[in-house]
């Protein structure tokens, strides 16, 4: 019954999306203007219906209703409740339903709160949003119905895969999806503005919170994904340039560029066309990423159930949405009037530079990700990895970060480097000292550049606060400072990891000792342990940092039976200045056990930095929303006063 209710709500929501599209489009014409008035209520109801549908799916997973195919395939009565619920979106059908639900709710929010834009632009935006949603509804209802029944019901679910029972994995997809869908709102705004040619600061201010919000979620998603791969894969690395990772990085790069260009548009009414294009590109990258991951045309170390048929469907959606949007862009962008001008040495100029660099990095990542496919078209099998991505990325990241340090100090419109030269002396000197010291240590080029840059940026990030009263600094400025500081912290972690990591690969007997960096590690004992559906061999290591007190690490090598699978559970010991990472391998014929150990100084800074970046975005978002609210209240007051005077 619940399943049928959920399905009915979904069909109804799809019908309302169609209505929203038609009414929105007709509402733009002179004769259909009256139809335009129903668009906002329809959008709100559509959002409520998608929420209802998703709630129905959650309820089915809550009850472990095994007469529903999706539940039977992905859940199990013995699963902990958290993972039962997470199972609702931990699969293709459920994740697509989550996607349309977030999209429906976003549409409702836009329809409810957004009053700043001309009504015609709003109609076009909501119609655009409905158009994009319709594609996903069709996908769900025609080819991946999450509410499909199983007759007869299964006696027990199939989804007890313990590998997927991980809190990181439970919340990772929704985080990324919120980010992707937020970008769909920016996309719809861009479509609306292109249709009505109303591009300006008001438009940018309307779009900015959505971009900020989705950027925060994308950042968190990438940070979580990276940490998950780090501790789960047991390879000691934190980024593998794997297609699945690139698929989440590309929208983030585009969103970062968009975030900065939309600020220029809001503050200075410049970069109109460019911002439009980025809004389209950012959402395109979300869809391209989803497509690449789901279609299976690129294979990856992260196991994903792939299905070429679904891939074709997403490709068709891509073609219609993105192809259509880019064609509209080609037709209309030329007629959007040019914005304000600025000198090259100015805040705008620095932001343009940052945008171009981000776009170049995006291009590099996209090309590297697609190259295996391209090579295959010519009959060669290749894979592309760090030897390509790392130096190519650095070519553009390094100048971008240098400008990131200086740009926020420049004035809008026009400025001269001479004016800010005194401010940047401290970070520059720091960079130089760090560079020289590291060069004497014999650190390789890329990590050296990274640490030196990070040292400079840590100071430079706070320079925009100089000469201001800290209590009067507005939240968005704090946001920028915190985010830029986070970039420096993260960069420091990455560079330290590649410069100073020490690795040991040894075969030990119980009682043997090995040294890794400053650590002394004893292999105390290896013993079998058993979990709910696995058995494992567990090593107990006793580790001393620099002769200090001993800590215990217990890496395991686990064997699962349903489905039959072996995994390595790495063990981590975190200190303020780094992490010790241990993986247990196999037992050799001579009775010794293989152990792989890393000492990774400051590696945790990578993720702390990432969290700071997201926090910066959050501060900016809160600041913008608060000031929008204040402005809205003031406007209402004026309107109210006028009303009273009129009476």
């Amino acid at each position, binding site marked *: 019954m619940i399943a049928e209710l959920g399905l009915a709500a979904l069909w109804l929501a799809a019908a309302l999306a169609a209505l929203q599209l038609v009414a929105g489009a007709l509402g733009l014409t002179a004769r259909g203007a009256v139809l335009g008035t129903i668009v906002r209520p329809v959008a709100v109801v559509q959002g409520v219906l998608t929420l209802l549908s998703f709630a129905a799916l959650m309820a089915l997973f809550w009850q472990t209703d095994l007469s529903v195919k999706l539940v039977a395939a992905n859940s199990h009565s013995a699963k902990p409740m958290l993972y039962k619920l997470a199972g609702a979106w931990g699969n293709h059908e459920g994740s697509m339903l989550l996607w349309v639900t977030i999209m429906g709710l976003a549409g409702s929010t836009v329809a409810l709160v957004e009053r700043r834009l001309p009504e015609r632009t709003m109609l076009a935006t909501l119609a655009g949003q409905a158009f994009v949603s319709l594609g996903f509804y069709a996908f769900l209802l025609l080819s991946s119905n999450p509410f499909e029944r199983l007759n007869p019901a299964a006696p027990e679910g199939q989804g007890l895969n313990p*590998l997927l029972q991980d809190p990181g994995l439970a919340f990772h997809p929704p985080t990324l999806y919120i980010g992707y869908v937020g970008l769909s709102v920016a996309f719809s705004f861009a479509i609306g503005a292109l249709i009505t040619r109303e591009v300006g600061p008001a438009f940018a201010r309307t779009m900015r919170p959505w971009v900020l919000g989705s950027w925060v979620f994308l950042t968190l998603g990438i940070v979580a994904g990276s940490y998950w791969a780090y501790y789960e894969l047991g390879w000691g690395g934190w980024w593998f340039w794997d297609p699945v990772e690139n698929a989440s990085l590309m929208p983030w790069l585009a969103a970062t560029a968009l975030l900065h260009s939309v600020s220029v548009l809001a503050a200075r009414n410049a970069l109109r066309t460019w911002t439009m294009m980025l809004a389209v590109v950012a959402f395109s990258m979300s869809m391209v990423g989803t497509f690449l991951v789901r279609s299976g045309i690129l294979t990856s170390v992260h196991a994903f159930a792939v299905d070429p048929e679904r891939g074709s469907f997403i490709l068709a959606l891509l073609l219609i949405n993105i192809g259509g949007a880019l064609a509209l862009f080609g037709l209309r962008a030329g007629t959007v009037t040019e914005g304000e*001008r600025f000198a090259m040495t100015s805040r705008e100029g620095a932001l343009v530079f940052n945008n171009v660099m981000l776009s170049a990095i995006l291009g590099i990542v996209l*090309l590297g990700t697609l190259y295996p496919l391209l090579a295959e078209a010519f009959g060669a099998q290749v894979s*592309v990895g760090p030897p390509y991505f790392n130096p190519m990325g650095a070519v553009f990241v390094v100048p971008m970060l240098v400008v990131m340090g200086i740009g926020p100090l420049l004035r809008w419109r026009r400025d001269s480097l001479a004016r800010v030269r005194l401010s940047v002396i401290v970070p520059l000197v720091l960079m130089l000292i760090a560079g020289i010291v590291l060069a004497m240590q014999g650190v390789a080029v890329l990590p050296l550049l990274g640490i030196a840059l990070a040292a400079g940026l840590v100071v430079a990030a706070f320079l925009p606060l100089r000469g201001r009263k800290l209590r009067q600094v507005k939240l968005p400025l704090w946001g920028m400072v915190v985010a830029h500081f986070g970039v420096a912290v993260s960069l420091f972690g990455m560079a330290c990891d590649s410069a100073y990591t020490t690795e040991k690969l040894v075969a030990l007997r119980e009682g043997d000792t090995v040294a890794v960096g400053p650590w002394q590690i004893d292999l105390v004992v290896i013993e079998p342990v058993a979990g709910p559906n696995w058995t494992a061999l567990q090593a107990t290591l006793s580790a001393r940092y620099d002769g200090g007190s001993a800590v215990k690490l217990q890496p395991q090598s686990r064997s699962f039976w349903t489905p039959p699978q072996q995994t390595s559970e790495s063990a981590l010991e975190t200190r303020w200045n780094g992490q010790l990472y241990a993986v247990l391998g196999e037992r050799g014929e001579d009775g*010794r056990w293989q152990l792989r150990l890393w000492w990774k100084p400051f590696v945790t800074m990578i993720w702390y930095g990432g969290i700071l970046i997201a926090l910066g975005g959050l501060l900016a978002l809160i600041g913008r929303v608060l000031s929008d609210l204040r402005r809205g209240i003031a406007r209402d007051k004026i309107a109210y006063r006028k009303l009273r005077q009129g009476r």
Partner: protein
Amino acid sequence: MSEFVKPKHQRLVLVLIALIALIGAGLLAAWALRNQASYFYVPADMMANPPEPDRAVRLGGMVEAGSIRTAADGVTIQFVVGDGKERVPVSFKGLAPDLFQENSGVVAEGKLAANGTFVADNLLAKHDEKYVPREMKDMTEAQARAAVAETQ
């Protein structure tokens, strides 16, 4: 450049700068990809047309029965990868993946050393959650490539 660019030129200049930067990035990427992409070899290819010594490539094939030897340090293994036509000795220092075993498919990432041994720094033997791995006997070239489609 503290002067404003002429009004009607600003957009053109910006577009041109962006285009030059992006095309530059594209060309640079194309050049780097030609040099850095790691090609896939099966033993027969590798014998007929060996890769340059410093070039990172992948070698895919079957681990020959009885060929796995562990060195005295306990963590270096040596084995032979074959495709039914040719055989390549491989040495690998590290933790072998769980599904690495004799008579099953493997993809090794690494470089071909001057002495003809393939020095691997990573071994892949992946499998999907819902299917048993594509382990095959008598792997032909086409089959090796197909196996790689999964492990790549």
